[in-house]
């Protein structure tokens, strides 16, 4: 039986990779200290975002709804929409909490009639790449091999344009795309509560662990619910990345991964964290 991705972050198996001395100048303070994510364009490819939910608080700056025509062609509807079933709003709320001044863009690729086609997902990603997005939160993916090549090409294109694709590792054991690609930042949930306590995983394809267990997420009209899922870990990392980009514009995905690795909680504190915290205080 394959282990679930989050198991890499359980206390008894969590690794503490050595920090690289030459990178010692990269500290959390240097990386995101004082940043609010101001002006960074963050696309949420999902079910839409409900801009009036208090968790999002009007942070949405633009919309794109992917529409599949009867002829199979995709078009983009950029008029404002809302969230068709709440998943996108839950993710957007987490991003907004970490990076309150990041500019959110709602890219609706899921349909109320059940999921979304891999084609709609690829079309939404294409829109995000072509419209100046700097970070894309992908708390979804496809398990259909048919879309492997198309999504791979788009993920590479995004990487070449310095666009960070942050994907939720699939909660299910099937390989899911694009979270399996080397060009994306793949995230599963760890047991921490503080978004800045993210972990680095030295065993790909999953790169980082972020809070995704029993997190408060936006739910229905104006409510919140306590949920667990990798879908909620990815937006936490998306928020951190927006903070870093606001402070250090122009970073490439490989530099971003280097910064995230260096500032990861399990790399910074390669000993029992409670001991380290006691020393710090």
């Amino acid at each position, binding site marked *: 039986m*394959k282990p*679930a991705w989050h198991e890499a972050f359980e206390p008894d198996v969590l690794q503490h990779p050595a920090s690289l001395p030459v990178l010692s100048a990269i500290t959390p303070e240097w990386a995101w200290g004082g940043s609010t994510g101001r002006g960074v364009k963050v696309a949420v490819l999902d079910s839409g975002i409900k801009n009036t939910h208090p968790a999002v608080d009007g942070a949405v700056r633009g919309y794109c709804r992917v529409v599949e025509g009867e002829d199979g062609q995709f078009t983009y509807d950029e008029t404002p929409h809302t969230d*068709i079933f709440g998943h996108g709003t839950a993710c957007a709320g987490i991003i907004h909490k970490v990076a309150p001044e990041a500019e959110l863009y709602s890219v609706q690729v899921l349909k*109320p*009639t059940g999921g979304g086609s891999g084609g709609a997902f690829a079309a939404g990603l294409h829109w995000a790449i072509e419209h100046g997005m700097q970070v894309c939160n992908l708390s979804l993916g496809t*398990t259909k091999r048919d879309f492997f090549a198309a999504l791979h090409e788009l993920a590479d294109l995004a990487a070449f344009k310095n666009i960070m694709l942050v994907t939720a590792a699939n909660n299910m*054991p099937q390989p899911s795309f694009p979270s399996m690609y080397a060009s994306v930042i793949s995230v599963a*949930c760890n047991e921490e509560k503080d978004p800045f306590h993210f972990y680095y995983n030295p065993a790909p394809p999953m790169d980082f662990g972020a809070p995704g*267990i029993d997190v408060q997420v936006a739910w229905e009209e104006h409510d919140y619910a306590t*949920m667990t899922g990798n879908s909620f870990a990815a937006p936490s990392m998306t928020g951190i990345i927006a903070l870093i980009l606001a402070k250090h514009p122009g970073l490439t995905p490989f530099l971003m991964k280097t910064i995230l690795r260096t500032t990861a909680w399990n790399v910074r504190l390669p000993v029992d964290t409670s001991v380290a915290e006691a020393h710090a205080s």
Partner: protein
Amino acid sequence: MIQPATPEADHADAAYARRLRDALGGLGMLGTLAAPQSYHQLLTLLVRDAMQVTRAKIGTLRLLDKATNELVFEVVEGAALGPRAVEAARQFRVPLGQGIAGWVAASGQPVVRSDLAADPRFVAEATERIGYVPHSMLCLPLNGEDGILGVIELFDKADGTAFTADDMGTLGVFGEAAAAAITQSQVLNDVTRLFGLMLQRLLGDTPDAVLLHDHVAELVARVVETPDYRDAIQIALTAGQIARQGPEARRYCLQVLDAFADYLRAQHSRATLGGRLP
């Protein structure tokens, strides 16, 4: 030759239609018997297995009705629920995208929710419908090849703790096998139905339809009663049990069966050649 419309002819038509129905019913049964499990039995087994793995007190399985885009209860299991509650839950249809089950079905990702009792709307609905308010829920999508098939929901662990990310990981593996088993079973049902329809069409257009019908009816009766057929059903049941263990088990099973078939073919060739091979 076209028969004149007489009361006798009408009576013969009605009798023929009845016999045809019986024969097709027999054929349908043949398909159902050959299936690893009856469809409902299969779904119930899946829910019970999921409950056992996670020690959940209540388990349900809803399938997507593609015509209406609603999630419809197929199985509701749990000693904590009375028969009336089970029946009430069965009547409940949820449009895709609504509630946690709808959310999971639409996103294809499982979630755990651990504060159900703090949600006034959920509490009111659960109290009214089933007279029981769960605290924790794990909802798992059943992802088919061509989209979502449905969801499995599990409520409240027996020890009172909430579902964990570990439960989600374990159930993820299970969900993949469950979705494959459901797809196989649906395909078998469809093939049986298609075969029945084709036969109906053939019988309807053939001049000596009654003769053909009698042959079919006789064949069905004979086949079902033969020891060979009963053995075949046993093989199908065993293969079905293996198939539910997942793709790897299915591959090994096929390899073993293929090797055995090769061996039998080789034996047959030797027998045919009268021992002339080394």
